[in-house]
């Protein structure tokens, strides 16, 4: 009976506690209460060693959220690079593949923002919620505009279609998230700063273009886009690296 009860525990647990546990069981006769108690203890040890223990759940879900957020941020930024490559810098015309890539990129950034916002949401909840809401509104708007575009019901020109909506919402949402992240100073502050500077420089560039300062304006727009993408990439990598540090692993 004792031998059977001890075997109910995982091998790793037995290697550590097996001898002393067996010595305790030999100290006194086992009643039904003891058997039930030991079986529950064995179940608890099995669950804990598989990472399902109650006191490891919080840390586990937290690291998972950081990892998913970091990967989504990198995917979102990569998709924006694809959008730029597909449009070739054009601001007119229309392309279904670009609409879909743009929609996916914003959705990925939304997931990235959500997954990486655990720290910032404590200190700057309003900024984080603003960033989330703006990006979410943009994603929904692009979804609706994209549907219209794909079915031929919407405008057949980027200038009236999803591109400006996506650009503005992604820029505003990212800037708000960048400010919250910079203040939180847990994830990369350089990445956060890039995320704030990028949209600001891009906006100045767009104004310059509208004022017929084409060369200067386009230069600023390009710098803004590079800074914006660098910010998301840097924050994504920082979140994944933070997830791998022992400080956030279950004990």
């Amino acid at each position, binding site marked *: 009976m004792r031998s059977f009860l001890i075997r109910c525990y995982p091998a790793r*647990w037995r290697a550590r*506690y097996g*001898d*002393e*546990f*067996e*010595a*305790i*069981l030999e*100290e006194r006769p086992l009643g039904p*209460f*003891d058997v*039930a*108690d*030991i*079986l*529950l*203890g*064995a179940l*608890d*040890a099995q669950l*804990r060693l598989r990472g399902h*223990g*109650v*006191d490891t759940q919080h840390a586990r879900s937290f690291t998972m959220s950081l990892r998913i957020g970091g990967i989504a941020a990198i995917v979102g930024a990569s998709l924006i690079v694809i959008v730029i490559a597909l449009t070739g810098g054009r601001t007119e015309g229309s392309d279904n593949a670009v609409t879909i890539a743009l929609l996916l990129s914003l959705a990925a950034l939304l997931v990235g923002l959500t997954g990486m916002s655990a720290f910032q949401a404590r200190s700057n909840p309003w900024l984080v919620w603003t960033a989330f809401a703006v990006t979410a509104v943009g994603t929904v708007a692009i979804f609706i505009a994209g549907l219209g575009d794909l079915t031929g019901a919407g405008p057949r020109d980027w200038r009236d279609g999803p591109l400006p909506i996506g650009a503005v919402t992604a820029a505003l949402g990212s800037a708000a998230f960048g400010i919250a992240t910079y203040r939180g100073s847990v994830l990369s502050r350089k990445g956060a700063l890039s995320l704030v500077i990028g949209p600001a420089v891009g906006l100045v560039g767009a104004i310059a273009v509208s004022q017929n300062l084409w060369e200067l304006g386009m230069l600023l727009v390009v710098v803004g886009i590079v800074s914006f993408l660098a910010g998301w990439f840097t924050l994504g990598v920082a979140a994944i690296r933070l997830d791998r540090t022992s400080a956030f692993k279950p*004990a």
Partner: protein
Amino acid sequence: MERKIPEFGRFAEPSLLILVSLSDGPKHGYAIMQDVEHGTGRPMGAGTLYAALARLEEQGLIEPLQPVDRRRPYRLTAVGASNLAEQLRGLSEFAQMGLRQLGKTSP
């Protein structure tokens, strides 16, 4: 700095009882069981004891010593002692509050 009391789930009470038992010196598992049973009048099963011991050891609140025969004694760490003091102070304040409220409503 404020130190948070670790979460032990359904092993919160056994963990506290074990910490109290170890507060007057190192003890091995069976001695802890006897001590707890003597102090509370309720038996503590070996399964519960070792589930709680493993958590306390993981949290760094207790540490194992060299085994004597197959019996391994455990002792409180400095962190464990301060954690225990904090928990007992919290319980004491809670008990005093309860007694005050009971005093107000008692006929």
